[in-house]
């Protein structure tokens, strides 16, 4: 057992550190002056192009498709080192890098791979995900957006929701119902859609965080060529599964955020009748418990990375990472406010620390739902890891158009 980098990983880390030290500052933002959304997106493209030119884009993707052909561990080492700089990264770029490259590489034709993969790696094409609908979130196979064949084209009608950065994306990946007369997951087809196609109307959703990076996307008689179909007609569910399982092991939660040290700092700075809040046994116990939770989540993540690096298949237990990470953010962020009492609910004094906890607490509420809701993850662990029976379903073996 060894937590240190292997010689190969250490060499890669050193190389990456040096490269970032030389190039990242130019693309990073100064904390006091955040960019507008437009500026963020433009810089995100530029940073992606810069990484691609240096061979640091698509680290996990095969060389055959323009990637680096590197390991998961190398991709994570890069992300962790990159996270030390405030560079413009996020879903607007990562959806393309992770989800789109994977699905087009696996299910796309040679022509589609030529058309989309290289520009995506270079940041020339930014992508959004048009999957969820108001009536189909956890139950994604229940999508209603309709795709009707019309000669060499398809006509799309429907409504998508929760599309990150759709208002800035060039293309979108989309699942639609091509055949309502069969059971729900057999009548789906996968497409890529040019977001400039007439009939696509993107409307931002105002989130509780104040931001609007999620959108509703309305599709009204959107006409796309059959060359935008990925995989066979009716193969949409398999393509969707490729996308969903590609988002497994990133570096989220492994960055060195020092949240426990910040909690301790807050407690020390908070007066109490015993001296400071840190002298209070109940607070010490809670902080220690959160420390154990945070360490457990990170250590578990590293254990899975080791298994993957040895070529092992990792299954539903990988969802434990996001499940535990969301818990950790919500509990730590929430407790930070309790430690300070009322003053913990305003941003004054140590603004960066408090603002960070406020943001974590808000975002964690979404993280418990997005990318596999807690309850779905627990079902999957129970069923696929522990071998327990599946849920009773009301729509099994019923053609979609016969469902209530």
């Amino acid at each position: 057992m060894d937590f240190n980098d292997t010689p190969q990983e250490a060499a890669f880390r050193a190389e990456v550190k040096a490269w970032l030290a030389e190039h990242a500052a130019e693309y990073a933002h100064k904390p006091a002056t955040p960019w507008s959304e437009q500026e963020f997106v433009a810089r995100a493209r530029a940073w992606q192009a810069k990484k691609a030119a240096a061979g640091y884009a698509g680290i996990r993707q095969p060389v055959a498709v323009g990637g680096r052909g590197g390991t998961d561990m190398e991709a994570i080492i890069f992300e962790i080192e990159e996270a030390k700089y405030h560079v413009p990264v996020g879903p607007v770029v990562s959806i393309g890098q992770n989800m789109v490259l994977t699905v087009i590489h696996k299910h796309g034709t040679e022509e589609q791979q030529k058309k989309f993969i290289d520009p995506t790696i270079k940041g020339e094409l930014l992508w959004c995900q048009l999957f969820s609908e108001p009536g189909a979130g956890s139950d994604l196979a229940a999508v209603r957006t309709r795709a009707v064949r019309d000669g060499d084209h398809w006509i799309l009608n429907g409504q998508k929701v929760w599309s990150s950065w759709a208002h800035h994306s060039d293309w979108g990946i989309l699942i639609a119902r091509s055949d309502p007369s069969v059971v729900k997951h057999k009548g789906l087809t996968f497409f890529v859609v040019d977001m400039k196609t007439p009939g696509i109307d993107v409307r931002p959703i105002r989130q509780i965080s104040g931001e609007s990076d999620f959108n509703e996307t309305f599709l009204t008689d959107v006409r796309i060529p059959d060359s935008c179909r990925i995989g066979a007609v009716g193969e949409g569910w398999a393509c969707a599964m490729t996308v969903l399982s590609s988002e497994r092991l990133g570096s989220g939660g492994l960055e060195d955020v020092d949240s426990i040290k910040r909690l301790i700092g807050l407690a020390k700075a908070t007066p109490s009748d015993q001296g400071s809040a840190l002298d209070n046994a109940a607070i010490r116990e809670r902080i220690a418990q959160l420390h154990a939770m945070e360490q457990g989540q990170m250590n578990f993540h590293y254990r899975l990375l080791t298994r993957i690096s040895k070529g092992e298949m990792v299954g539903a237990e990988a969802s434990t990472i996001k499940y535990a990470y969301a818990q950790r953010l919500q509990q730590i962020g929430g407790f930070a406010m309790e430690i300070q009492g009322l003053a913990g609910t305003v941003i004054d004094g140590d603004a960066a620390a408090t603002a960070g906890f406020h943001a974590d607490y808000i975002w964690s509420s979404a993280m418990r739902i997005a990318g596999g809701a807690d309850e779905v993850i627990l079902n999957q662990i129970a069923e696929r890891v522990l071998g327990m029976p599946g849920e009773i379903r009301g729509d099994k073996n019923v053609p979609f158009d016969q469902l209530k």
Partner: protein
Amino acid sequence: MNFDLSDDQKMLAEQARKMLEEMSPPDRLREIIEAKSGFDPELWSALGELGFLGAAIPEEFGGLSLSLLELAVLAEEMGRSNAAVPFFSSIVLAARTIELAGTQAQKETWLPRLASGETIATFAYGEGPGNITPAGVRCEFANGVLSGTKSPVSDLAIADIAVVLCRTATGPALALVELDQDGVSRQALTSFDELRLHGALTLNNAKAALLDQGDAAAIFDQLLNAAAVITAFEQVGGTEACLYMARDYAMERQIFGRQLASYQAIKHRLANLYVKLELARSNAMYAAWTLVNDRPDQAQAVAAARISALEAFEFGARENLQIHGGIGYTFEANCHFYYRRERLLAAALGNRTHWADRAISALSA
């Protein structure tokens, strides 16, 4: 990074697991409880013969010169089977102390006998309710003899010798006392864990020898960290046993026309237990690595391991019994072994509050 046990360690675990399954099945545990002995001598001999007891004892003293990780792997299997042997007292605590603080002569005298299992040792640290601190002990060593009371002491009735946390005129100390002598009296105490019995040790000018090759308080602190990590592995083994026992029961049991395991409340309970188990296991592995490699973050890593293992086993032991329904409350079922062992492991090395203090001290240093 290689966050995994080595192939040898995995083989050791497999070997220990098979042996414990064969020699220490649930019915055997029931026999031992009814005999009121808290001890399985056949199993103890077998562990000695296979070299498991001496795993981390240096070869020059009859051991295998392996590491804390091998002890941890063995402890996990003992936790899984809930075995009734004084592995923890004799090897993890007492033998380790003799190795850290004993003279060459003391090591030569005792370690081989502990490695073979022919001598059973225990470690007497507590003196009644409250947390264990070297500064607070009252049992006193002076002029070659020990006087005072140590209680509760694990495996006291079957032990031949005891390592005792005591004090001299100058401060905390560690002493070794042979228990078969006039100045020693032992009183059995009704023990919550029926498979690891405890007693009260009264010392009245009992002849003893100091283990003084090092600072006692520092050695005790080091010992506590190692003990906490090995206990964490034992807790992980017990938690996993509870998880799969509950799962197996729920798969068999039918209620309102379907498997108990098909109810979401049960599925989610066990999925949550799985998450707690794996987080605890991950922390225990990391903490063991920090100790073996003397890493600067070892204190907070060990505290995290103890806290998460405690939480996981607490949840596992309780919910395993709960999921079994009424049958879980019977002696004939196997839930009670873990339900009792879990509380002992939660309390023995200091409670949650004590370890929270250790974590915060390390993190705010």
